[in-house]
């Protein structure tokens, strides 16, 4: 079978299942008795097994199968969830991820059999079940089926099914019947038809059990009407059931005959069927109701009878209406990139039209201006829509962190908890792809350096279990991600010492540094305060890489710390990357764009208000002292002939700090498309890119935040 066309879907879905498994295993470790979780795990493992089997990934299938066996025993309460068991299961998940990674890069699952994990799983099974000998044989045989896939099921009886058969095959007897269904049954009885309950057992190696159930139902519907399915038809179709399901039929046939007929469908292991009997009270109640109903609508009955003859058509109508299918499509990110580029071009073209309409006022009539304004609205909306399609919840990045923290907790021998909020916060796909590593770095830092050992925490009167927080939220045009811990905080004295030792700063400098300056040292390349290099962190390639990466994404990072109280790393990322609102200004005779996001206000300040404090220019802005940045001097622009009497000062805010940027003229607000100026030209950090103006000119975008 050629499965290559499904490969992409397989990879996507397998990833989802693996993530699902990871998450639920974590829950299971905490709440070993949580039935929902066990069921969810079982379902995910099972789907994964089926999928990998269909795609022909035998090793993956085998490993999942053995894991599923363990889950199955847990579900049947035959085994207890222990920490070591979860460890092995996590190892199994890692191995599956490795298979998947291999499939993704090389389109095959690789040669690794992961025998050790499989053996560990089987050991656990044998140990947990006690009655090792008999079981493990069956287990082994079962594995063999999954592995070579060719053995007929009839030859071996899988282990799990045995018990379920033993305590009553007629599972449909336990199912709750809804009122309207009872009514239909009573009505059928009154018409002299049989009501039969069936429980269908599908072979456990069946891969497309959704399709199998459909075929069984179709076979049955030739002889009557299925009035109820449990699980529901939709769930059956979606393979949301284990290997058995129940159905209720109204039919002229006997249960025996139905059993024989349906058993002809391949991959059906067994069918148990019997007449379904309603209690006397129910029959009495519903017969009465029916007589009343009949009086009202005799027509209905005729329809019902007719539909019974025509069988399947009516049955389809009777089944619960299909819920609205998942109304989404998977789109290659490259296609969205192309779309985004086109929107960028369109905005540039629109800006061109705007500048024409601005420059030639009298020659053009009003309707031209109106149309331009209309076009402007459309392009803005279009841009927003395209942007939205590229937004992905941050969840897809952070959902692997609980697992990571668990592993770190074991490795470091510290107990800790990760609390996450705002996983639904959305970011551009390109940012999402890049933000994972920096966040991981910060979390590892928090776990390794931030949190003290449990004993130290207890001594300091804290909760011995450390807490790490990951909070994401939107703040204006930015998305903020905070990585917080309640650990020891950063010891600024220690950093100073280290920095002096390494010759980064002199003692004099150290004495003058504020805590904030000291923390900035942490972000310098190859600076680590860790006494020992551990597996987890301490090689000194941490924070500077984090910083570089975040700045490459157009974001910024700052750190706050309280000795003894913990540290907080705050990452700010722009909501969108490619197109921003900017304030266009003139400095010297050049045009520059200042991103609107960081601008607070624009002030007219008389030059007499500029005060000189220790060689630095500041102004007093409504009670707060704001340092002044002469952009013209920094950028080496042409100086105006003489100092003007009044300055235009753009007040910029970064975190808590304010600064005033002196510009010569304001042009106005404009939507601009950010373009890179390339890697050849030496890029000062103040220039974050360039944009093309309406008249084709290039204006540089200033990252004013870097000057605050």
């Amino acid at each position, binding site marked *: 079978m050629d499965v290559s066309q499904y490969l992409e879907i397989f990879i996507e879905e397998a990833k989802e299942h693996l993530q699902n498994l990871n998450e639920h295993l974590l829950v299971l470790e905490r709440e070993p008795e949580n039935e929902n979780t066990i069921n969810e795990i079982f379902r995910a493992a099972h789907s994964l097994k089926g999928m990998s089997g269909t795609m022909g990934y035998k090793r993956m299938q085998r490993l999942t199968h053995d894991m599923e066996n363990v889950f199955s025993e847990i579900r049947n309460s035959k085994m207890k969830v222990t920490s070591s068991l979860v460890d092995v299961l996590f190892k199994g998940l890692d191995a599956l991820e490795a298979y998947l990674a291999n499939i993704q890069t090389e389109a095959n699952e690789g040669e690794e059999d992961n025998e050790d994990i499989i053996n560990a799983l089987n050991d656990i099974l044998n140990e947990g079940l006690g009655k090792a000998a008999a079981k493990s044989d069956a287990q082994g045989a079962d594995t063999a089926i999954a592995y070579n896939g060719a053995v007929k099921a009839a030859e071996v009886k899988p282990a799990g099914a045995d018990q379920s058969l033993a305590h009553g095959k007629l599972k449909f007897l336990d199912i709750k019947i809804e009122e309207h269904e009872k009514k239909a049954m009573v009505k059928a009885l009154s018409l002299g038809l049989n009501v039969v309950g069936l429980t269908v057992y599908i072979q456990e190696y069946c891969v497309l059990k959704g399709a199998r159930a459909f075929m069984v139902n179709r076979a049955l519907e030739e002889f009557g009407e299925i009035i109820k399915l449990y699980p529901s038809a939709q769930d059956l179709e979606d393979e949301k059931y284990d290997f058995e399901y129940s159905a209720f039929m109204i039919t002229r046939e006997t249960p025996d005959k139905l059993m024989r007929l349906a058993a002809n469908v391949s991959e059906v292991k067994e069918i148990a069927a019997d007449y379904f009997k309603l209690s006397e009270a129910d029959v009495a109640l519903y017969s009465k109701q029916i007589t009343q109903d009949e009086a009202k609508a005799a027509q209905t009955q005729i329809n019902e009878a007719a539909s019974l003859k025509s069988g399947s058509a009516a049955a389809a109508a009777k089944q619960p209406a299909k819920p609205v299918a998942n109304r989404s499509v998977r789109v290659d990110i490259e296609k969205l990139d192309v779309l985004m580029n086109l929107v960028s071009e369109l905005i540039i073209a629109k800006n061109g039209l705007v500048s024409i309409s601005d420059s030639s006022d009298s020659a053009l009539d009003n309707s031209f201006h109106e149309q331009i304004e209309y076009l402007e609205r459309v392009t803005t909306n279009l841009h927003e829509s395209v942007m939205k399609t590229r937004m992905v919840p941050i969840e897809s990045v952070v959902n692997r962190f609980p697992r990571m923290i668990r592993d770190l907790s074991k490795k470091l021998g510290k107990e800790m908890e990760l609390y996450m909020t705002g996983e639904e916060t959305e970011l551009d796909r390109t940012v999402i792809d890049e933000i994972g590593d920096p966040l991981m770095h910060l979390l590892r830092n928090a776990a390794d350096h931030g949190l003290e050992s449990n004993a130290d925490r207890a001594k300091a009167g804290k909760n011995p279990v450390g807490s790490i927080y990951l909070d994401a939220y939107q703040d204006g045009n930015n998305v903020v991600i905070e990585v917080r811990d309640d650990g020891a905080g950063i010891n600024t004295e220690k950093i100073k010492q280290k920095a002096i030792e390494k010759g980064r700063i002199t003692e004099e400098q150290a004495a003058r540094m504020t805590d904030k300056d000291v923390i900035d040292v942490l972000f310098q390349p190859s600076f680590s305060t860790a006494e020992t290099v551990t597996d987890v962190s301490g090689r000194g390639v941490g924070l500077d890489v984090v910083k570089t990466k975040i700045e490459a994404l157009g974001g910024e990072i700052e750190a706050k710390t309280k000795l003894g109280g913990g540290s907080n790393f705050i990452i700010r990322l722009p909501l969108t990357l490619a197109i921003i609102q900017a304030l266009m200004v003139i400095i010297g005779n050049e045009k520059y764009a200042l991103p609107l996001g960081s601008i607070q206000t624009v002030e007219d300040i008389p030059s007499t208000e500029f005060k000189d404090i220790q060689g630095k220019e500041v102004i007093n802005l409504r009670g707060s002292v704001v340092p002044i940045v002469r952009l013209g001097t920094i*950028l080496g622009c042409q100086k105006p002939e003489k100092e003007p009497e009044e300055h235009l000062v753009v007040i910029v805010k970064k975190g808590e700090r304010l600064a005033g940027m002196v510009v010569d003229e304001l042009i106005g607000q404009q939507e601009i498309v950010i373009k890179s100026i*390339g890697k050849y*030209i030496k890029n*000062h950090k103040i220039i974050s890119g360039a944009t093309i103006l309406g008249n*084709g000119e*290039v*204006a540089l975008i200033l990252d004013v935040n870097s000057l605050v």
Partner: protein
Amino acid sequence: MAALDSKQYIIAYLNQQPFGIDIKYIDNIIVLQGITRVPKAQAYFKGVINLRGEIVPVMSLRGRLELPESEYTSKARIIIVRPEPQSAPVGIIVDEVKEVITLEADAIEKMNYDESDIKGSFSTGVGKYGSELINLLNIPAIIADKGSNELV
């Protein structure tokens, strides 16, 4: 390379001196247009231009080769080159572009240069074309930032 191998070069002039640029690097030749200065960049980078919606950095070849700068005339051109087929384009300003010539491999005198001599690495050899000697430029070395610190 085989003896029959020949290469085509575009002849550009700086200070009336001919320089050869292998056409395999050349994307486009455009007239001089408005250049937006990029503050704090290397001195020989004049800034960036808008080349059909793409931002392209532009360097002065005079500046790069440490020749005295002079006013550009209407003959000045920006040669858009790509050091690698896939890499981003860069513009090189020259005084004038004259012609395309074909040089046989045996008309090219390879030059040995000292790796530490940045300026020396800008030349791949000397081409003999008629009576003229043409300095053949090593475009990747010129574009690369290597040694720029000394030049700024």
